[in-house]
């Protein structure tokens, strides 16, 4: 913690960054922090409650952050993959941001509840994550950590769903999606949903009906998953932000497995590696095509 605070103060003092984006204590656990001076930098924290992906704050469209000036951002390995995505897609220039990598052993499934990290309390995505620090960062802080091995509950659930009949899966998802209020929190927190105008807000034609009902809800979640195919970094923010508790992680996890199986791609923190949708190989599997 001291290491992180000292680095943040140094970056601010030397002018390498005008704002250090990290986490600080808030009324309900930790919250994103925007430290522009030494005092604020001294409040920065990093522990297993720091689940928030801070990469979205690098988006130039978030003017309140942009006007603070050149940012340094604290990134877990998953957040670094998001930053790599933004660099790859020309939303952020690598040289315009200082990346402070934190060594990460996983975050809590329920960061607001707090508590210690255990095989029981760890977020599901961290159970299958094999990166402890990122090579993309300018600075890496924290102590090396051992991964907490635990089987993924989402993978088990995806396998259960795969084993069902289409009608049963349909019933399951309709039950879940019926709770969607189209609040767009999933879109707002997603580091890679940055469009100036989302396809869902297009009206001529309106591909996705905007009111919360079955038809539009299904279209929204289908097209969101399609757009994130091969790009989703599994930061888990969509599911964590969903006020209706829809298991969006099952969808992103499923698509990620399709992308991995078919195209041999796993989103990483190297911006030079292209996204698998938008590239191709002449021998891509096509067993489903007559």
């Amino acid at each position, binding site marked *: 913690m001291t290491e992180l605070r000292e680095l943040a103060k140094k970056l601010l003092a030397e002018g390498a960054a005008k704002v250090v984006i990290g986490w600080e204590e808030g009324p309900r656990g930790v919250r994103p922090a925007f430290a522009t001076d030494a005092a604020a930098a001294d409040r920065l924290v990093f522990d297993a409650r720091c689940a928030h992906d801070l990469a979205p704050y690098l988006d130039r469209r978030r003017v309140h952050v942009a006007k603070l000036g050149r940012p340094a951002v604290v990134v877990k390995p998953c957040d670094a993959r998001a930053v790599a995505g933004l660099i790859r897609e020309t939303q952020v220039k690598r040289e315009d941001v200082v990346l402070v990598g934190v060594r990460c052993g996983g975050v809590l499934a329920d960061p607001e509840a707090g508590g210690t990290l255990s095989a029981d309390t760890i977020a599901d995505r961290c159970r299958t994550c094999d990166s402890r620090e990122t090579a993309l960062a300018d600075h890496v802080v924290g102590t090396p950590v051992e991964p907490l091995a635990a089987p993924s509950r989402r993978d088990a659930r*995806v396998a259960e*769903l*795969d084993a069902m009949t*289409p*009608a*049963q*899966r*349909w*019933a*399951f*998802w*309709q039950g879940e999606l019926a709770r969607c209020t189209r609040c767009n929190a999933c879109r707002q927190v997603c580091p890679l949903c940055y469009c100036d105008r989302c*396809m869902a807000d297009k009206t001529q034609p309106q*591909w996705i*009906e905007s*009111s919360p*009902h*079955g*038809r539009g809800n*299904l*279209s929204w*979640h*289908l*097209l969101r*998953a*399609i757009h994130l*195919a*091969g790009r989703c970094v599994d930061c888990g923010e969509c599911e964590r932000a969903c006020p209706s508790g829809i298991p969006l992680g099952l*969808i992103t996890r*499923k*698509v990620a497995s*399709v*992308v991995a199986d*078919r*195209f041999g791609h796993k989103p990483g923190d190297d911006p030079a590696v292209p996204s*698998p*949708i*938008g*590239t*191709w*190989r*002449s021998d*891509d*599997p*096509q067993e*489903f*095509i*007559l």
Partner: protein
Amino acid sequence: MEGTATATGFEPRITAFVCNWCTYTGADLAGTSRLQMAANTRIVRLPCTGRIDPAFVIKAFERGADGVIVSGCHPADCHYTAGNYHARRRFAVLRELLSFMGVDERRVTFSWVSASEGAKWRDVVNGAVERVRECGPFESYRALAGGV
């Protein structure tokens, strides 16, 4: 097999999104060869499978289609060199995603039909109609509109 609007009670409605250069021309050839096929499909002609957005497929189901066909040029035959390769990746994901969300895989048919494969186009159409017939009307998707 011939299409009839009334004989069996359920006549699937199938939207076909096809590329202009291979499959549309192959379907033309099926016509000039007088190959009889089910009358359940309606073709939407597009320049290339690369132009076919997954949103088209979803929209077709939203509007009440019982099945969808997506068809274009064989690999290496694309008029635009690579549109079909991009489409192939896109639809590989769409197909598994739809299935995961509960859409029966038999409702979506993907095929490569070249300009010389009139008979293949007939088989693709008849096969798709047959599979969708097995699935029955896509009432569950149509029912989603109930809320509006």
